[in-house]
Every structure is written in structure tokens, then in C-alpha cells.
């Protein structure tokens, strides 16, 4: 099953990935990061299809897409 990892030290909470996800799996984290942002996070991992669109739109290259 595909999953994503968001590097919270790079994410600047622009949420381009949230809008790009065709399955609407991503959302805003409730935890504040060291940089002072609410980073993007995977909220519905069961729906992820590993299309890498979140990675493609991320301007901070904070997302890694992994297929188990």
C-alpha cells in the first residue's frame, strides 16, 4: 500500500499538496512545527493510490512517496 512521509522541518504549510491530491487524502496537521507552521499530513491513508501528485506540487520537496 502506498504511503507518504512529510518532512515537517521543510513543510511551509502552503497546502498545494492538499489541493493537488485527487483522492483528498491530505489535510492540515493539528500540531505546530518548529518553524511555526501547521504542516500537511496524511489523514486518510487507506485512500492513497501513490499517484505522487502531492510530491509533484510540493515547492519545498518535503514529501516522499513510498510503496510498501
Amino acid at each position, binding site marked *: 500500500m*502506498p504511503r507518504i512521509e512529510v518532512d515537517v*522541518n*521543510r513543510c*511551509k*504549510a*502552503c*497546502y*498545494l499538496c492538499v*489541493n*493537488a491530491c485527487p483522492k483528498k487524502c491530505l489535510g492540515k496537521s493539528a500540531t505546530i512545527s518548529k518553524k511555526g*507552521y501547521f504542516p500537511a499530513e496524511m489523514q486518510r491513508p487507506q485512500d492513497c493510490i*501513490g499517484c*505522487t*501528485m502531492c*510530491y*509533484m*506540487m*510540493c*515547492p*519545498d*520537496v518535503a*514529501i*516522499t*512517496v*513510498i*510503496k*510498501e
Partner: protein
Amino acid sequence: MTILAKKPQSLTDIPMHYCPGCGHGIVHRLMAEAFDELKIADRVIGVAPVGCAVFADDYFACDMVQGAHGRGPAIATGIKRSKPQAVVFSYQGDGDLASIGMAEIVHAAVRSENITVIFINNAIYGMTGGQMAPTTLVGQVATTAPKGRDPKLQGWPINMCEMLSQITGAKYLERVAVDTPQHVMAAKKAIKKAFENQVKGVGFSMVEVLSQCPTNWHASVDQALEFVRTQMMPQYPLGVFKNEEAK
């Protein structure tokens, strides 16, 4: 476990300083992916501009020079002529390339220097705080055009790809955008082709990227993407303006 997508090797681990939602990071990543895929990472030399991307040397894991404002193509010419085996690129914004650097870019194209130019068009001066650029749209508000750009006072925006396509020496010109995943994929193809051309010795290649600047457009990231689609694309149509293979 397979990694479907991760940060390319040609980018360093330093987090980028760009504002949230800025298109620069996407373009940096596309270029780094092109270096990795073409296996040219060890011989790339880049020229960083004056502008938001002035610290690009921190982010690319290749040799970099930082040039004077607008002089990227001239510096890249010198590097390429003294080190013909190197793959040389100049990374420039619209204030840098279309304003103070107009002479350099035009003459680099006239001489058909075998370099790759990546031109980021966000219709505003980003780093200095949102002044009017040569590419600012008619009616667009900037700090030096507070009532919006008025053609009677400040003239019309300049279309670099269309202008350079008149020059025989320009061999590859394409305009792309980074507002949707589809456009990012097309942008990746264009950037990769621009570097491939240089490896093949085709001549002057330039890719113009329409990029969003949420901070200086005073817009949310969503509004900025909408601005790219509804305002910029009619003025700056996407597409290939010139594509000449080596003869």
C-alpha cells in the same frame, strides 16, 4: 518497499527560503530531477541570479556562480566557452532577465550560445517587495504602479518567448506553468529537453516558467494559482515557440 518519489540527489538538504506556495521550489526540483535523469549532475555549473533565487547555490548540489543583476547569460557564456564539457545553466527571474538583463539574453540568443536558460516569470519583482516588472500585466497593482499598470504610462507587458523566437540563434523556446500537476509534468519535460539540447550541442535553449508569487500578489496560494490561470495565461500563452534540432 519501493520509493515512488523523493527529493532528487542534485538538491541539497538545506530547506529553501522561498515563501510558502512559491513556484521556485518546484522548478528547482524539476531541474535537479533532469540532472539526475540525464546523469549530468557532476558536470553542471549554474549561474544564480539577483532576485529571490539568489541563494540557489545553497540548494543545488552542483557548482554555482552568483552573477551581477541580469548578467547571467554573459557569465554562462564565459563558463561554457572556457569549459565546453560543462553543462551550464542560467536561472533568472523576470526583473533580472526581461529588464536589466535584456541585452545579455538577446545577444546570448543571437550568438546561439549552447547554454540553457530557465526564466521564471511571476509578473513582479519578488525579492525587492513587489515593484512593477516588465512582465507585469495591464491593470496589475504593484508598489510602483499603485493604481495598476497603465499602458499609456508604463507600456505593455513583454512576451520574451515570442520576442526571442524571431532570432535565428534561439533554438528551443517553450513556455510552461507550474500551477497544476499536469502543467508541472509538462514543465519537467520542457526543462529536461532544454538540458538535453545542450548536451547534444543544439544551441540556445530557454524555458519560461509562469510561476506564482502569493506574497507580492497579496493573494492566498489558491488565489495565486487562479491568477496564473485566468490572468497570466491569456497574456502569456503556454506552448513551444521554437524547436530546432541540431543541423
